[in-house]
């Protein structure tokens, strides 16, 4: 050819050529490059090339959501929710999805280890036979009152095993605790339920059928109690009914992810939530006409307006909404309960439901049913009870401490002194799966399997009105030389002999679990039925649990609720600083997600910050203090201090600063250690009347440090008000 090809024509030809090539190369079966790897010994129901799905329970928090885990050639590849499980009905949260990152985490404890309270994981191996002997000797040679078990929040089969063991031999009952139960203020909810509704336990708030929802601090779309169940309920409230869309009002001093979904977000003064509830109660009672119940008779609405900062118009508008609603639901939680007056606040809010007769009916408040084989509600320890436990440790009242499923050195505020108290316990044995702070501070680590490698069952404390047990089974063969803690305790008890062996006369963990399920075999109205225990267990595994088909409608009585005069003490705040400090559980990390890169990479829903801790500060406040985005500041309370970079967040009160909880680890693997800071470090020993930590009851000083640390954010660096454009102050 004598003429040159133009650029355009060249591109046309090249593209045509490329397209032709692409089409032609697709002509052969690509599957010939696939390889099938059968196992050495494959279960009969597994076929090569096909995924096998197992039903199990998520162990990332205590909610007890059911999972279906997809495995391929022996490896777990995807987590989805179990559509039949009444708690989550097929949905999962981010932490549930990321549980695979725990299973295949590079920093798992791979074998029983003689840790010797060293600063790093020693990897000094111990044979399992020796480990069992150590546990047996510890149980045998210690005075029974000086043996202590510290377990995680979830009331699972291990809790039942240890409870049975403890009561059989006369040792103290196991103590359950976790950061989530601390920030959920479960003891407060239970006590308020007892005082107002007549029965201790976690109330269940039927969001799905409510038409007006007032949440006083409860972050039910994030980590509160049973987030997946409540998120589903919220979705149903909004879009489940074609004739009506529920109205949602959130009272919170910062705009959390939950508040961001509200129709109205009321940033009231921290500690005045209960007052606002009482004022609303009075206004609603007035709007409805008739006598004002004693509960709301003594409140002065104008005073509430002044103290809380909520205008009278707003209060009257909300009261009008509530008075006209068919199922107005008031939910207490979060920072409202983490105050010195938290119990009174919870009572006031629950009484609001009693006032509108929204108890025990769709869209109202119920009492969470007990699990089918549960005798009574056993709640996790309150923060106050943990201080008693720690005092016992300090006084030498604990000679052997077993820790499983909780990381108190990190999860408890430093002011509790758990770390120091460990020094007074001669033998600390951890069953941790990961090298977290508490595991490293132990004498031995006898690692448990990961949740996805474990048998068991769990009782969801709330989230559904159907009494249920959520079942767990291994979805993969355990990768490392770990052993189920229940198996370790059973084997050690057999080794120890005597009363211990009698207390746990089981072959292994599965034998124990089957024994516990036996009482369900004959029960009517179940999700499945079976003639005897072996068939029952097979179905239990296949379905991922057993639940009653019909809901247990325990309607709490309203009579006593309104009869007593409710009164609210002013919230007390500790410390001299000018800012209210609000720690909140990171909605992406939860209490234990910092070692999972998926969660670290997940942008925080309101700030989009990843891989770090930040301090949320109102831009006006920051402007006054000459603080800009990414400036590292020191947060000083009377209990301690911590540093974090600042994130200018307009949706927070100017007198409040907030910090997510979840980072600030000093151990726990390569993704978590040395990253961010822990807001629990500035929390002091202040409790509400129910014994829960007044975690939102601290006032702090903010001091600039002169350093900056850029936060990695998904959003634009320009910021909401153009702060990042570099405007002058």
């Amino acid at each position, binding site marked *: 050819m004598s003429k040159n090809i133009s650029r355009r024509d060249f591109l046309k030809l090249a593209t045509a050529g490329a397209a032709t090539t692409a089409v032609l190369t697709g*002509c*052969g*079966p690509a*599957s*010939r490059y696939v390889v099938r790897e*059968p*196992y050495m010994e*494959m279960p009969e129901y597994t076929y*090569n090339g096909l995924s096998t799905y197992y039903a199990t329970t998520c162990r990332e928090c205590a909610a007890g959501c059911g999972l279906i885990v997809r495995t391929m050639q022996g490896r777990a590849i995807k987590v989805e929710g179990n559509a039949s499980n009444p708690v989550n009905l097929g949905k999962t949260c981010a932490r549930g999805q990321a549980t695979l990152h725990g299973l295949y985490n590079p920093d798992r404890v791979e074998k029983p280890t003689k840790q010797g309270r060293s600063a790093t994981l020693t990897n000094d191996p111990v044979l399992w036979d020796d480990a069992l002997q150590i546990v047996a000797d510890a149980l045998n040679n210690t005075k029974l009152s000086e043996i202590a078990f510290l377990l995680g929040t979830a009331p699972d089969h291990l809790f039942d095993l240890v409870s049975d063991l403890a009561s059989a031999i006369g040792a103290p009952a196991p103590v359950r605790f976790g950061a989530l139960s601390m920030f959920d203020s479960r003891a407060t909810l239970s006590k308020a339920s007892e005082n107002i509704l007549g029965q201790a336990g976690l109330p269940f708030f039927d969001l799905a059928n409510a038409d007006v929802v007032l949440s006083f601090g409860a972050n039910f779309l994030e980590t509160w109690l049973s987030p997946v169940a409540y998120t589903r309920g919220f979705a149903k409230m909004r879009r489940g009914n074609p004739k009506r869309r529920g109205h949602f009002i959130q009272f919170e001093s910062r705009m959390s992810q939950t508040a961001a979904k509200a129709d109205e977000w009321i940033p009231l003064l921290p500690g005045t939530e209960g007052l606002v509830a009482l004022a609303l109660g009075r206004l609603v009672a007035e709007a409805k006409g008739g006598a004002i119940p004693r509960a709301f008779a003594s409140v002065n609405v104008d005073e509430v307006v002044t103290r809380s900062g909520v205008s009278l118009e707003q209060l009257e508008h909300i009261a009008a909404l509530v008075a006209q609603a068919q199922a107005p639901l008031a939910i207490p939680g979060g920072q409202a309960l983490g105050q010195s007056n938290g119990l009174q606040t919870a009572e006031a809010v629950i009484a609001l439901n009693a006032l509108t007769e929204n108890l025990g009916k769709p869209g109202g408040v119920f009492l969470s049913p007990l699990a089918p084989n549960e005798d009574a509600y056993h709640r996790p320890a309150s923060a106050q009870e943990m201080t008693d436990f720690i005092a016992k440790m300090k006084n030498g009242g604990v000679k052997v401490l077993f820790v499983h499923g909780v990381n108190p050195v990190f999860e408890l505020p430093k002011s509790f002194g758990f770390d120091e108290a460990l020094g007074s316990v001669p033998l600390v044995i951890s069953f941790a799966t990961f090298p977290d702070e508490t595991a490293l501070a132990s004498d031995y680590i006898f690692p448990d399997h990961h949740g996805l490698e474990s048998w068991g069952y769990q009782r969801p404390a709330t989230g559904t009105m159907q009494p249920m047990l959520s079942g767990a089974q291994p979805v993969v063969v355990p990768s490392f030389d770990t052993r189920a803690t229940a198996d370790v305790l059973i084997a050690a008890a057999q080794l120890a002999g005597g009363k211990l062996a009698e207390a746990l006369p089981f072959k292994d963990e599965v034998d124990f679990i089957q024994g516990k399920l036996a009482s369900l075999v004959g029960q009517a109205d179940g999700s499945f039925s079976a003639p005897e225990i072996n068939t029952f267990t097979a179905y239990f595994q296949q379905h991922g649990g057993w639940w009653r088909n019909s809901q247990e409608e325990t309607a709490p009585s309203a009579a006593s609720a309104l009869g007593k005069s409710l009164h609210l003490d002013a919230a007390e705040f500790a410390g001299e600083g000018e800012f209210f400090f609000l720690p909140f559980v990171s909605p992406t990390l939860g209490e234990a997600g910092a070692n999972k890169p998926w969660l670290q990479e997940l942008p925080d829903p309101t700030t989009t910050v990843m891989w770090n801790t930040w301090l949320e500060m109102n831009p006006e406040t920051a402007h006054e203090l000459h603080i800009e985005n990414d400036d590292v500041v020191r947060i000083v309370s009377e209990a301690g201090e911590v540093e974090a970079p600042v994130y200018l967040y307009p949706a927070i009160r100017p007198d409040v600063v907030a910090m997510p909880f979840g980072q600030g680890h000093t151990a726990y693997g390569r993704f978590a250690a040395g990253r961010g800071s822990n807001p629990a470090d500035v929390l002091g020993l202040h409790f509400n009347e129910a014994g829960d930590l007044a975690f939102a009851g601290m006032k702090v000083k903010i001091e600039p440090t002169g350093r900056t640390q850029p936060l990695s954010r998904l959003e634009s660096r320009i910021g909401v008000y153009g702060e990042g454009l570099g405007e002058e102050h």
Partner: protein
Amino acid sequence: MVRKIIEWVISPMGRIAALITALSLFSLAAYGIYQTQQPPEQPIEFTHKLHVGLGIQCLYCHPGALRGPSPGLPTQNKCWGCHQQIAKTFESEKLAVLVEHIQNNEPIKWVPVAQVPDFVHFTHRPHIAAGLNCENCHGDMTQVEIAENPQVMNMGWCLTCHKARAGDDEEKLIKLTDCGTCHY
């Protein structure tokens, strides 16, 4: 510009060039398609001829055929169950590969042969339930050395048999030839 190209192609030089290009493309395509129809190389030269000839049933190693989509492959233990008792296992060079895999606890990376594209949802179960034998589609395995397909398993071949099995039954014919039966 297109006109220029056409003019050149019509010229004698162009015609020869076009012919050469066409021939080479054709042979390339033919070779490519030929390649794709060759049985793939397997990690162990397992001969069906010997094993089926000994009387081992298809479903012994491929149990999933009875129950669902994928017939499955034998696990290491299934092979080793017999082979550990056979003296030749430890003498033969070909079987040394098997021994190595077993001793190192490694999976044998079999390459699947009777594959259909992903958009075809083929299940064995209804075919066995209809009374077909394995050799109807997979051929007489007593004659097959390394696993290969006796014929191309394309849609035309499937439909031929489907139509034949339906016979006069109109409802069955519709069910067996509907697109959604296999391409759902």
